[in-house]
Every structure is written in structure tokens, then in C-alpha cells.
């Protein structure tokens, strides 16, 4: 198969890993799970920095590792962004970037170097030593350096985790443009759901060294059997295409499949895609379309499932009519009885709020 295919087994005194997953040949695959679930170790094994007891690994049908083979780490074309940037302290920013270029082979050109320097805003920093850079700047250099090593696979290990809120905000746009411009598999490790939802298209859920689920982000986020949907902040992730803008009411019309929703503010140019987050707590269910209501967005759906999700509460998975898009709704058990809700029933989903995950354009 194209893309990445990995299967690792590792037994240590205090933990073990037995993880098998795949990642598509382009786009961001989020590796998500609690601390200690083995996400970083998996990334290190993919880079060859850690040897599993047994490992199989291939990228675009080229085998990197199997029973008898182990490609040395420096022969694997990965770009690794470490949580702690790991710039070389004896080299300035230019030296760090050139370190990567010199070893990247003829495919790295001076034009690409300039382009990457511009892309990460490093022009003014070229002669600085890593010790004099801020955390956010260091991480930008680290991403540029990884990119200039001409990778076939990007591995990002919680690149935002060591940064304060200010640096995070500063670095997010860079990360986003990186994620959307590269046509190669990107594995992004994080324990922060908001981060994953923002960048990832695919998701690999991990717990205790095992993969508990894997697939497209939207379908995993709406799966009531997975921990994502059990979270208090659980919600569906939906991509919407921007339509017309109403300047009088300051509302943007957006298309979700054949349906139209209205969102406050000018969200961007016509035809651009925005990722929206629809929290389960913001979606209520009605049997008929309400007429006199302040709620703007009411969409026809079919109930897919109803599961108890806490004391007195039920989590409903709704399928948007005429699409395969799922929404989540958290209602009370009492409402379920009062409205006699069952799977297969056609209902109206009343959406009180939708938030933008991704303010940058998604291409």
C-alpha cells in the first residue's frame, strides 16, 4: 500500500507496545492518546532511533524494516521535529539549516532554501545562535530544518508542548501552512485534542501501547464507542465550504454537503473550506422544525444511535440527511423518553453554536 504501514512490538519492564497502523500518503495523521501511551516511542521507532523487539515498517511500498532488515536511522528519509527542537548549539540558524541541506542530496535547491526561510519567517534570525532564540523561534527553525532535509515522511512529536501560550499562537500558522503544503505523510503526536482536531485528517488513537481505533478524524470524533465522544467537550468535526456573505447581518453562509448553515462574521473567500467543531452539548434535538426560535441552524438528520454517556445523559449520533456526515448531540434521558427517540428516526438537529477550528485557509 502507499503511505506508511507500521507494526511494532516492544516489551519493556514497565510498559509494552503492540501497535499496528497505517497512514495515508498525504495529509496529517494524528497520533493521539494520554501521556505514556507510547506515542513518542512509536515515532522514535519509525525514525529508527529506537529498536522494537519486532518491527515491520514500509513507506510507499519500500520496506524500511522487517524480520531481517533494519534501515539505519540516518538512511531513513524522515524529517523529525522534536518537542525540544534539538538545534545544534554550536551552529547558528543558517548553519543548522545548511546542516540539513548538505545531507539532503541534490533535490534540495537554493530556491527551496529561500522559500522555506521565507515560509517560516527566519530571514532576520539567520545569524543567531539557538541559545539566543525564543522557544517559538527555535521550533520554527527546527521545522524548517526538518523540511530542508528533503523528507519523504514528517514526524512531529508534540511540537507545541514545550511552548507557552504566546509562542503557540505565534507558531500555529506556520505549522498549519506546513501541514497543508506538504504532499507527504505527516505523523503528528499530541495529547491535546484541540491541536489534533486542528491539523489532522486522520487519527490513530492509542492507549497503553495499543491502537484502539484508526480512521478519518470526522468519523472517529463522532463514534460514541470511542473515548473522544465521551469527553465533556466532545463534538463532531465538519468541513464547510464558504458561500455568500451577508454584510447587513454580518453572517457567512456555508455549505455542509447539500445543507446551508449561517455563521457569524466574515470567514473568508467564497469557495474556501473551513473546519468547524460542533460540540455535542450545543446540539439539541426536535421532532419538528421549530418556527419561532433564535437558533439559526436547524438541519434534518437521522438518528444513528443513542448511548448512555453519563448520569441521566444520552449521546446521540446523528447523520446529516443526504450525507455521510455525522453530528453528536448530548441530551437527557428524560428527553429521549419524552420524544420517544429511537435509531432510524428522522429529527431536526438544532445547532446553537459552531466554532471554527481553523482560521487559516485549508487547501
Amino acid at each position, binding site marked *: 500500500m502507499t503511505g506508511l504501514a507500521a507494526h511494532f512490538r516492544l516489551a519493556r519492564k514497565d510498559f509494552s507496545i503492540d501497535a499496528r497502523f497505517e497512514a495515508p500518503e498525504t495529509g496529517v495523521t494524528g497520533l493521539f492518546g494520554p501521556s505514556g501511551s507510547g506515542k513518542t516511542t512509536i515515532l522514535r521507532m519509525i*525514525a*529508527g*532511533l529506537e529498536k522494537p523487539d519486532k518491527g515491520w515498517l514500509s513507506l510507499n511500498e519500500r520496506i524500511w524494516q522487517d524480520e531481517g532488515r533494519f534501515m*539505519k*536511522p*540516518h*538512511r*531513513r*528519509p*524522515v*524529517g*523529525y521535529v*522534536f518537542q*525540544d527542537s*534539538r*538545534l*545544534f*548549539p*554550536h551552529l547558528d540558524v543558517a548553519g543548522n539549516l545548511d*546542516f*540539513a541541506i548538505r*545531507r*539532503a542530496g541534490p533535490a534540495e535547491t537554493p530556491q527551496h532554501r529561500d522559500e522555506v526561510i521565507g515560509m517560516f519567517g527566519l530571514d532576520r534570525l539567520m545569524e543567531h545562535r*539557538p*541559545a539566543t532564540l525564543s522557544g517559538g523561534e527555535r521550533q520554527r527553525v527546527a521545522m524548517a*530544518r*526538518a523540511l530542508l*532535509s528533503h523528507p519523504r515522511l514528517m*514526524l512531529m512529536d508534540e511540537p507545541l508542548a514545550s511552548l507557552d501560550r504566546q509562542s503557540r499562537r505565534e507558531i500555529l500558522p506556520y505549522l498549519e501552512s506546513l501541514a497543508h503544503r506538504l504532499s507527504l505523510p505527516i505523523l503528528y503526536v499530541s495529547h491535546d485534542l484541540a491541536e489534533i482536531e486542528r491539523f489532522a485528517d486522520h487519527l490513530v488513537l492509542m492507549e497503553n501501547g495499543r491502537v484502539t481505533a484508526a480512521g478519518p478524524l470526522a468519523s472517529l470524533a463522532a463514534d460514541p464507542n470511542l473515548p473522544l465522544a465521551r469527553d465533556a467537550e466532545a463534538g463532531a468535526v465538519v468541513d464547510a465550504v464558504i458561500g455568500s456573505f451577508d454584510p447587513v447581518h454580518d453572517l457567512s453562509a456555508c455549505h455542509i454537503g447539500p445543507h446551508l448553515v449561517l455563521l457569524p462574521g466574515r470567514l473568508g473567500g467564497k469557495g474556501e473550506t473551513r473546519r468547524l467543531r460542533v460540540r455535542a452539548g450545543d446540539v439539541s434535538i426536535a421532532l419538528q422544525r421549530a418556527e419561532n426560535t433564535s437558533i439559526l441552524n436547524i438541519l434534518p438528520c437521522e438518528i444513528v444511535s443513542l448511548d448512555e454517556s453519563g448520569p441521566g445523559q444520552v449521546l446521540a449520533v446523528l447523520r446529516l440527511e443526504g450525507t455521510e456526515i455525522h453530528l453528536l448531540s448530548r441530551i437527557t434521558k428524560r428527553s429521549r423518553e419524552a420524544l420517544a427517540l429511537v435509531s432510524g428516526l428522522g429529527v431536526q438537529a438544532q445547532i446553537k453554536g459552531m466554532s471554527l477550528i481553523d482560521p487559516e485557509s485549508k487547501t
Partner: protein
Amino acid sequence: MLEVVTLTLELAGLTTLILIVIGVPLGYWLARDTGFVSAVVSAIVALPLVLPPTVLGFYLLIALGPNGPLASLLPYVGLRTLAFSFPGLVIGSVIYSLPFMVQPSRNGFAAIGKEPFEAAATLRASPRDTFFSVALPLARGGVVTGMILSFAHTVGEFGVVLMIGGNIPGETRVLSIAIFDMVEQGNWGEAHMMSAGLLGFAFLVILVTGLIERRAGRRMP
């Protein structure tokens, strides 16, 4: 007297050069390998620190002499024995000063940690490439300290030189031996001059080494 100083500097210089080639990679290996073999090698390297120079000199004398393990090869380089010769002195000095090169280098390499090595590997640097482009520059303070200490220690050695080198002018008569000789002959004036020179030299070495280490300590994050 000039002859004595020149010979001493030649011996120390050559010994230091050889030690850079042997001691730095050895220090690198000892810093990164955690196996039993490296522990044994580490102990052997440190032996000259605790052995009396006479013991070391005695075994070197046997090893380098006409019946030693190297003796059969010596005719090819036009020598009958390495004992009481300049090459023999160099070999003895290299062994005697080895820990002074290896220990600081090893500490320098160990202080780097594994992080830069991993970063280098993910940027396609081979282990050899990494040694020269990452490890050596980052451990520079330790390596330079090792070079200075090796040089200084060789200049100041006495026991081993006396055992295997003797006191042949222009061949094995180095400063420390010459001073001993002059004192024996009652030539205190010249002994004074040389001793004071060595004292000043030793002080400078320790001062400079300290300054290098301080600077290296500041530079590392």
C-alpha cells in the same frame, strides 16, 4: 640547554599529536558505550594515574627491549631496541599520558547527551559524519583540555623517562632529567633556571585550561 628544551618540546608535541589520534576516538567510544568491555578498557586507560612511574617504566623497558614483543619488527626500521631511544620515549609517553587525553575528552563527549546525536541521525548524518560535525565541535572544550594536559604532563614526566630513556643528550635527555642531573652535579644555578621555567609553564597551563573549561561551561545551554 637549548637542545634539552627542543627535545622536550619535540617529545611533548609528538606525544600529543599521537594522543589526539588515539585518545579522542577512545574517549568518544568510552563516553557512548556502556558495555563491560568499555569498562575494562576504561580501567586500563586509567592505570597510569595510580601506578608508580617506575612500575610502568619497568614493564615498558621489558616490552620495548631487544627481547620484547616488538623486537622482531625493529630491524625493519633500523633499530635494535626501542629502550633508550627517542621512539621508545614517545611510546612510553603516549601510554603514560593517555588518561590525560582520554578523561577530559570522554567527559566532553558525555556532556553532550544523546539528543544532538539523534537529531543528526534524523538529518541523514552518518555516525562518522556526526562525530566530526557534531560531537567534536560540541566536545571541543574537553578535547582542548586533554591536549593541553597531555602536552604539559609529558613535559613534566620523570620516572618513566628515567626508566626507559636514560639520559642520552640529544636523544633522551629531556628537561626533568636534565634538572635532576644538574642538581646531582651541584649545578644549582642552571637547575634553578629550568625549574623556574617549568614552574611558570605549569602555572600557565593550569590557568589556561581553567579558562577554557569556564568558557565551554558558559557556552553550553
